[in-house]
């Protein structure tokens, strides 16, 4: 079952704004290592799931992983070769709004080299440029 909310107030949403930098969720809150976004994009539930699988496969049940983003925004699309109008399209997937600075994943309980490699593999699955951050070295 891909990531999506269990209950929502409305089935569809407007696109919203993605401007600015991440004002919250931009620091390490749980783990010692993290993957921080440097760009803005909508990250889909499939992409988040692919990252989670890639990290867990590399970690082999060691360490802990926190997903700091959640796809709670419905993404709609009209069918192909459809004329404009006739209402908004059907919900195709769910996305998380990621702004520059958003801490997307956090890890702990493993050596830094292992965390770095796991998050490097995860970064390939994402539509944004990202960087590896540690708690002790900020910039």
């Amino acid at each position, binding site marked *: 079952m891909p990531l999506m909310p269990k209950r929502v107030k409305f089935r569809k949403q407007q696109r919203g704004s993605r401007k600015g930098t991440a004002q919250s969720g931009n620091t390490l809150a749980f783990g010692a290592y993290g993957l921080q976004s440097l760009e803005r994009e909508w990250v889909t539930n499939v992409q988040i799931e692919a990252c989670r699988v890639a990290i867990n496969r590399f970690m082999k049940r060691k360490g*802990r992983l926190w997903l700091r983003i959640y796809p709670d925004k419905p993404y709609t699309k009209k069918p192909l070769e459809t004329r404009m109008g006739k209402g908004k399209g059907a919900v195709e997937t769910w996305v998380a709004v990621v702004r520059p600075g958003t801490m997307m994943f956090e890890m702990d309980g493993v050596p830094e080299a292992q965390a770095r490699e796991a998050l490097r593999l995860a970064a390939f699955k994402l539509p944004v440029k990202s960087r590896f951050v540690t708690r002790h070295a900020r910039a």
Partner: protein
Amino acid sequence: MKETITVKAEPRDRVGSSAMGRLRREGRIPAVVYSEGRAGENVQIVAHDFAQMMKRHHSEQMLVDLDVAGGKPRKVLLKAMQHHPIDGRVTHIDFYEVSMTRKLRVSVPLRLVGEPVGVTQEGGILDHLLRTIEVESLPADILEEIPIDVAGLAVGKHLSVKDIKLDPAKYAIVTGADVAIAAVSMPKAEEEVAAPAEGEAAAEPEVITAKKPEEGEEAEGGKEGAAKGAPAKGAAAAKGAAPAAKGAAPAAKGAAPAAKGAAPAKEAAPKAGKEKSEKK
């Protein structure tokens, strides 16, 4: 003997966000020095020197000697630091001038030392649950960090704040004694993500504001609603069926001349809706 950290600063007369932006681009960090009962004093420090100093220290709350324009060094506490959300560079610093005879409450980082037995021998995972604690002490005794030995920690065991041994004459721990600092637990089995079977549509979240089907609608579309079970889903199906019926109406109208009358069109509309919902 504790090392004395000296930070050199210059007075600053420029204020405002655009002036501070220019200041940062020049390689300086805007800062403010304040104390109880005294107005704040604007200063600036060289960003590179400060970054070099911070590389050797873990704590973000430590006592430093602030030297403003070559004057007499003042004992100040590094009270708060603001960081840029993306690159993490320091954008502003608050210095708090302290009285050396009055106790202060500061947050001190905890550093875990050693590899727990539960991790090396039993295959557990070390969880670092608390990273700083609040400690009350005189400014001269402020700790930069507290090392905690976790080597003896087995699976299912944890260390809490009451296990920290500090000199009670100098330090008073403010954080609750029962708060856990570190624990060793067994890794959880990975959740298997079941892919939706073929033909099975992806589940939709429940819409909490969806209107429940009215009684009249229930009589017509009740079968569909009942088959689906959840009232919200039933309502959504009824809603979805409505535009289909409308869309079918023009086709029925087109057929109307053959039928010679508008009445068949009216009948055709719900029929088309029913067919559409049956197909679904």
